[in-house]
């Protein structure tokens, strides 16, 4: 079944919801789509609705406000709905979003699409990273905060950035023994000093960060700067981790190596934007050093190189929920004007308060990106038999063989080895392949390019595709 609307927003996280409710306020007919059961995305994740009773006050005030606004708005919300492709319909001139869901149409057409697909944990490959019990900081957070289930009794965290502090504090609070939190950046303070203006005014965030730090100090959890996990071991699941101090380029320092017994290893090396739709649509992309990947090029209204395709929030570069919401407001207003819902030319302009908010959040995101970087040496932890592509079980030696055959881009490696061709479609190994190739060829990582993507962007049941394939009858 085909339906038409004015605006489709893909992703019901902070950015997507804000964009949808703002556009709806201006009178735009909006459809909001998300694959989860409840709106909120990863950052404003709500408890399952079956838990909600008697578990109030678990949310940020801002999230509560946003959800109330969404409820009161005219936005059509489709949850548990996977958007698996965006195509251009040359007949109608509209964008076509393909969906897999139970109670909505299988495609929606609209002149304008906002992509707000967020981000997911960035991985690095080390021996044993594919053992069960090794999980991302995001997975651990969901397990604790959303499900009330403990990831492990004895955990170690390794990675980069403030998210793992949050995960560590939550683990302690939930009753786990946390052996250490390893931060691979060694020069945080030196790098951080020049960014004091970026932190100034971020009181909410500083308060939150200090709260986590306080929990860790109280539990006497060591926070080790310039350390990283280098290996995980165990029979069918993680039982031991090997950690080491790393030098400035990220090479493990001999003599510093320690082994710890654990039943959970939580890894979080920053975030990777979900750029699948931009790659599918062939939007113009640019390389972003802080995430180590290509992100879509956008104008001041966050429109990509394709007219009508907008991008807000982390999917277009990691900036956090606050930045996503500021971007969303500006985008939504622009779209309302484009669609003719705002007649007065003055009212669609970006206000100076919005520019200030935007600058403030951009400064903070830039600071995080520059302070918490992954030193190159950590991309070389994998050994010959380490799995790089988990879905297709491709090892480092197979990837290296492909490079020796003359692979010049990650897509070449994919063609030769199947790495990135499995169920996750390169979401996990894509950035790792780029780093391996660049290091092997002695070139900057941007020369590795990015994995091409084909629809569906998530695996589907074949019946779903058949249902969608409506043969065109032309007379």
């Amino acid at each position, binding site marked *: 079944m085909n339906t038409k609307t004015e605006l489709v927003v893909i992703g019901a996280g902070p950015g997507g919801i804000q964009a949808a409710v703002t556009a709806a306020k201006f009178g735009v007919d909006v459809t909001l789509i998300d694959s989860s059961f409840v709106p909120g995305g990863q950052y404003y994740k709500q408890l399952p609705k*079956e838990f909600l*009773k008697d578990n109030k006050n678990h949310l940020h005030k801002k999230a509560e406000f946003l959800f109330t606004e969404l409820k009161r708005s005219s936005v059509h919300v489709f949850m548990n709905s996977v958007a698996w492709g965006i195509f251009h319909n040359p007949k109608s001139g509209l964008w076509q979003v393909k969906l897999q869901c139970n109670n909505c149409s299988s495609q929606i057409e609209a002149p304008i699409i906002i992509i707000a697909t967020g981000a997911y944990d960035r991985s690095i490959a080390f021996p044993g990273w*594919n053992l*069960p019990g090794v999980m991302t900081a995001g997975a651990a957070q969901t397990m604790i905060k959303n499900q*009330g*289930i403990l990831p492990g009794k004895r955990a170690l965290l390794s990675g980069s950035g403030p998210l793992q502090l949050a995960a560590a504090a939550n683990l302690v609070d939930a009753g786990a023994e946390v052996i250490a939190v390893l931060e691979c950046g060694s020069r945080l303070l030196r790098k951080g000093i020049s960014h004091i203006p970026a932190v100034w005014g971020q009181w909410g965030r500083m308060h939150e960060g200090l709260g986590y730090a306080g929990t860790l100090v109280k539990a006497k959890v060591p926070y080790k700067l310039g350390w990283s996990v280098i290996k995980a071991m165990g029979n069918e699941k993680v039982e031991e981790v090997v950690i080491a101090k790393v030098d400035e380029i990220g090479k493990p320092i001999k003599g510093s190596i320690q082994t710890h017994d654990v039943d959970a290893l939580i890894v979080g090396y920053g975030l990777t934007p979900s750029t699948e739709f931009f790659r599918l649509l062939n939007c113009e992309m640019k390389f972003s050093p802080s995430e180590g990947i290509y992100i879509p090029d956008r104008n001041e209204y966050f429109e990509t190189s394709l007219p009508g395709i907008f991008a807000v929030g982390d999917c277009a570069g990691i900036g956090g929920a606050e930045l996503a919401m500021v971007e969303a407001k500006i985008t939504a207003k622009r779209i309302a004007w484009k669609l003719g819902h705002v007649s007065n030319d003055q009212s669609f302009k970006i206000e100076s308060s919005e520019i200030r908010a935007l600058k403030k959040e951009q400064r903070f995101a830039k600071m995080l990106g520059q302070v918490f970087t992954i030193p190159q040496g950590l991309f070389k932890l994998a050994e010959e038999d380490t799995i790089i592509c*988990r879905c297709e079980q491709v090892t480092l030696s197979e990837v290296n063989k492909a490079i020796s055959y003359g692979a010049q881009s990650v897509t070449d490696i994919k063609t030769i080895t199947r790495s990135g061709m499995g169920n996750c479609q390169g979401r996990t190994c894509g950035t790792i392949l780029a780093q391996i190739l660049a290091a092997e060829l002695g070139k900057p990582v941007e020369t590795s390019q990015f994995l091409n993507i084909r629809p569906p962007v998530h*695996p589907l049941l074949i019946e779903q595709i058949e249902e969608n394939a409506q043969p065109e009858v032309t007379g």
Partner: protein
Amino acid sequence: MRITNSSSKHSIRKRGRSVDILINQHKVTAFEGELVSTVLHAEGIRTFDRKHKTGNSSGIYCGMGICYECLVTIDGVPNIRACQTPVENMMVIETSDGNKS
């Protein structure tokens, strides 16, 4: 392990209604709102799936439906992401090692 430490801010005071499910032919009690992935984890199961090519074990990794490492068979349908599937009463869940246990 479900978090029961009541002083924890993450202790969930009330879960959904209790449901009976079968995990690898064993009857287990879970609660509505819980995910297949976290129920299996709470039951001590770490290996959800085995890779065809190598036989390597895989389980919860990303926890948000991205990585496809937590695939299980639910009510006879294979390759379902455990982390994206809430439990339901009478649900039959099988892991790759299910028929061996």
